[in-house]
């Protein structure tokens, strides 16, 4: 094994964070504009020569999220950024879910059909991965980086680690083309993601441009499920949230 950097030594026990071999070429990051995917951007920049990003616009996506993604792509000096509108698809799949229809946040707290939460859109994550792989294919990249993590495991079976190897194999068989799906945050909770972001400079460079709030407020509302999860993560990690502590210094996001 190669000699690890200092930050890698701190993270090597978490599967997926440290790559045993430095891959060649480029990677595509699925970028949502949140802190997890911002961390993925800086992670990918450590390992790949060129980093592209792809952002999906679907029913629930707020303009602020897209603007955050766009700004992160600019500040992170990515080789390319594509925003793909799949709202029709999410309307198709949304019958069982509430979040896509926006506004009714209360429902997000309650259980959905069966054991899966109402925010679970069937096949959505799989679809994101397939679409991301398509984008990777079109920019001639064989690596896809996604920000799914421990917090997603409970409600979203399509964010669990056992999905990625079969999907890689499906794509290999269906396209006769190789793709590797990287999920560096897979085994990290929100606090550890913040620490990793700190190590990768994502916390310093990109976090002021991230967006989390479901209500679409900046600075965040602090009361919606997403804001509470974010605040909880920062509290556990002992780092201040730039969005709430920067005050007047909070930078503007790029317009769409």
């Amino acid at each position: 094994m190669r000699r690890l950097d200092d930050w890698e030594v701190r993270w090597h026990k978490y599967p997926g964070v440290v790559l045993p071999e430095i891959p060649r070429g480029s990677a595509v990051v699925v970028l949502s504009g949140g802190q997890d995917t911002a961390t993925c951007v800086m992670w990918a920049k450590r390992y790949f020569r060129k980093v592209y990003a792809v952002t999906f616009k679907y029913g629930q996506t707020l303009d602020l999220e897209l603007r955050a993604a766009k700004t992160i792509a600019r500040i992170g000096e990515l080789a390319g950024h594509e925003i793909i509108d799949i709202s029709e698809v999410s309307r198709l799949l949304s019958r069982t879910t509430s979040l896509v229809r926006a506004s009714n946040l209360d429902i997000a707290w309650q259980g959905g059909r069966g054991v899966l939460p109402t925010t679970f859109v069937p096949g959505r994550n799989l679809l994101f991965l397939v679409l991301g792989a398509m984008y990777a294919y079109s920019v001639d990249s064989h690596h896809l980086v996604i920000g799914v993590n421990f917090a997603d495991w409970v409600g979203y079976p399509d964010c669990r680690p056992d999905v990625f190897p079969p999907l890689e194999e499906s794509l290999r068989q269906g396209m006769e083309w190789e793709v590797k799906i990287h999920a560096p945050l897979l085994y990290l909770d929100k606090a550890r993601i913040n620490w990793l972001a700190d190590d990768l400079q994502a916390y310093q460079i990109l976090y002021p441009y991230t967006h989390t709030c479901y209500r679409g407020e900046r600075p965040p509302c602090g009361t919606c499920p997403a804001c509470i999860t974010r605040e909880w993560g920062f509290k556990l990690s002992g780092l201040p949230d730039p969005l709430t502590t920067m005050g007047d210094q909070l930078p503007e996001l790029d317009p769409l």
Partner: protein
Amino acid sequence: MNSVRIPESITPVVLVSGGLDSLAALVWTLNTYPNHRVHALTVDYGQTHAVEIESAKTICEKLGIPHRTIALPYTSLVNRNLGIRSEVEQWEDTTWSTSFVPFRNILLLTLGLGYSYSLSVGGAAVAFGGHRDDHSAFPDCRPAFLTHLESTFRISLGGNMEVHVLAPFVLVEKAGAIHYLAAVDALDLAKYTHTCYLGIRDPKCDCESCVGRRLAFERAGVRDPLWEEVSDETIG
């Protein structure tokens, strides 16, 4: 993969393109699962002709099936960099058939399964009309791939759901699908289908797709109702 038992709480979704193969798949699904609600889905991924979508709509109306069409920004995703190529380039590229659309079936089947899941309880089922003539040209029509995608989707739903990719004609040739339509007395519907890549109606068209259709009808030993109508018109 074929005529498996599916609980009635699952609504199979048939991927309907407006072509002959998907018509056969639709008829097969209706005959095999008469007690299920069946839905049809057409994906407009940019490179199809509007005629195809119209054909799909007409077929579903004739059969009385709920039908949805959705648009995918497919062209913006793949074609910009490699899809829309000049015809010369397409002929020169021998890696795949000239009509191979990267990721198409992966995407369509995933969408179909997702749609079916949203209409069902406890699982999902999708049917499509891929057949053996496609295998060499399209890696994403091969049975191994379909079985694999089925299990990938099942895992992505937590592993305890019923997930079925139904490909009734995957082991027979295109002529077999025509045979089936003739056998169940549904061949008449073939006159509403659309096949031509060039988007024209010409019995002598020599695009890959029309040639394949002619050949299949010859092999099946039946007349293509599409042209019966045309010749009637000409005579009339």
